[in-house]
């Protein structure tokens, strides 16, 4: 009975997940039919003209997440090295608990702070580059960096603590200083775990909706000529999530192609976050073994 129930509930859960993937594939079929590969490579999204190219949104999603990662990674690794390698155990736990608590701050609260403070800071700070407004890819990236910081700190800290203390003691016995031990023993040993921390944080950044929605500007079709143009970071943009969270989701239902295009965006997002999460957990797993 217990066994049958366990299996039954598991199958319900697995069925729901299968249904989830199935729904996105099936419901997005019309747009693949309508656009073909142009759906991914197209650079123009004008729903009134039935033109659905998602490249600028894929660009926006990736750039915003990368900005967040570039900003949060050094800070997060630094903080994790400090908690894992320098703090006594009790204090370390306290700091870690504090940071993990703050990982739970809801994204709508971050969004509110983004509207109130961050937009204006970015706008004034980068004034000489003449951003048109405070709603930029950079604003969203910075906000996301704060949001994923706890994830990076706590997972990196775990990875560093996973390095055996016997190795550390041996290194110190060989005359290495504390810093040398950290840099030449702990960090290389923990590198898979650190990589996993980055990937899982990236997954969170790619999928974050509400906070990004409120500060990214939601400007369609903004694709710079050069992919790595830094100036473009100070323009407004659109991410997959900000599009999905916006008014088009309500308008689109009922129109097969338009709705397919919206669901297709969710499918693209699912593939992106799925890949990153899978890579991340794969990475983390092997470091344990």
């Amino acid at each position: 009975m217990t066994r049958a129930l366990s299996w039954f509930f598991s199958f319900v859960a697995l069925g729901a997940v299968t249904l989830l993937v199935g729904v996105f594939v099936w419901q997005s079929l019309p747009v693949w039919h309508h656009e073909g590969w142009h759906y991914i490579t197209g650079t123009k999204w004008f729903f009134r003209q039935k033109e659905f190219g998602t490249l600028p949104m894929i660009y926006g999603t990736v750039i915003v997440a990368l900005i967040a990662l570039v900003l949060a990674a050094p800070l997060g690794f630094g903080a994790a090295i400090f908690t894992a390698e320098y703090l006594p155990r009790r204090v370390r736990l306290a700091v870690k608990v504090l940071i993990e608590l703050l990982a739970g701050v809801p994204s709508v609260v971050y969004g509110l702070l983004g509207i109130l403070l961050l937009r204006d800071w970015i706008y004034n700070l980068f004034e000489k580059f003449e951003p048109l407004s405070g709603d930029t890819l950079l604003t969203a990236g910075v906000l996301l960096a704060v949001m994923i910081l706890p994830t990076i700190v706590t997972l990196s800290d775990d990875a560093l603590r996973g390095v055996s203390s016997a190795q550390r003691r041996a290194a110190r016995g060989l005359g290495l200083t504390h810093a040398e031990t950290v840099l030449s023993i702990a960090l290389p040993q923990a590198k898979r775990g650190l990589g996993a921390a980055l990937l899982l944080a990236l997954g969170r950044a790619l999928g974050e909706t509400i906070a990004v929605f409120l500060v990214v500007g939601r400007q369609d079709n903004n694709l710079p000529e050069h992919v790595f143009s830094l100036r473009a970071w100070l323009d407004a943009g659109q991410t997959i999530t900000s599009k999905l969270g916006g008014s088009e989701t309500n308008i689109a239902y009922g129109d097969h192609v338009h709705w397919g295009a919206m669901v297709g965006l969710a499918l693209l997002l699912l593939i992106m976050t799925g890949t990153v999460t899978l890579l991340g957990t794969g990475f983390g797993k092997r470091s344990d073994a």
Partner: protein
Amino acid sequence: MKILPSLLALLVVTPTLFAETLKINGSTTVNLPAAEAAEILRVEQKMDIQIDTQGGSSGGISMLGDGLIQIGMASKPVSDDDRAKFPKVKFDEIHVGQDAVAIIVSKDVWDSGVHALTKQQIQEIYESKITNWKDVGAKKSIRIAFFNKEPGRGTWEVFAHWVYGDPKKAPQVSFPEVGGNEETRNKVSSTRGALSQLSSSWADGKKVFALGIKGDDGKVVDPTNENIANKSYPLSRPLFLLTNGEPTGAARTFVDFMLSDRGQELVKKHGYMRLKDLGK
């Protein structure tokens, strides 16, 4: 932990006391007086009214079309396309007030001397042919930061209808988009060189400033109540409650309340024109 499921069970079995729940959805502009009217009716008539603003006017129209709500709120007329999309639904437009769409700018633009634009200038700004305020009479060079209202918003439709005759003829443009009225006001007021379309009742003249429209004869028409009432200000729009056929039951009560003196006071309170002010 055990309390939660039983609480849940309690909620599920709570008997249906009021069979008729009135559901309303649509324009954030109409929402302000409507939501307050709903609050009054909930207390006085013990009515069960749910109000939401998903998708703006278009959300209201399509949800009414899908039969998900009984009253839609719209700050634009129901288009022929909408009617064609829902052939079985008889959209009944009930005029409850009038609002104007103001072309609003930030303080620095106002201070630089731009107080009115012609339709031609607005069109060229919309098509990115004019990108600096200096080209439309500003004393100094300020780039134009245009915030476009997102698709589905009544404000945008009214704007596009005025500039292009038909929203469908509006060209493909991509600007940063704004949704709600406060979001628009907030972003325009905090951005140099900003321009957007906004319900005129929100243009307070302190944080954001409403431009006048300059006619061919050079005469400037500001979005004042008088100009809206006598239709000389071109960007005015009706505020509608929409029903499927003649409203009945709870919907009737709600519509009647909005049309009553008290309902009309709410319309005025939120900065819109009452039917009386329009001479109706």
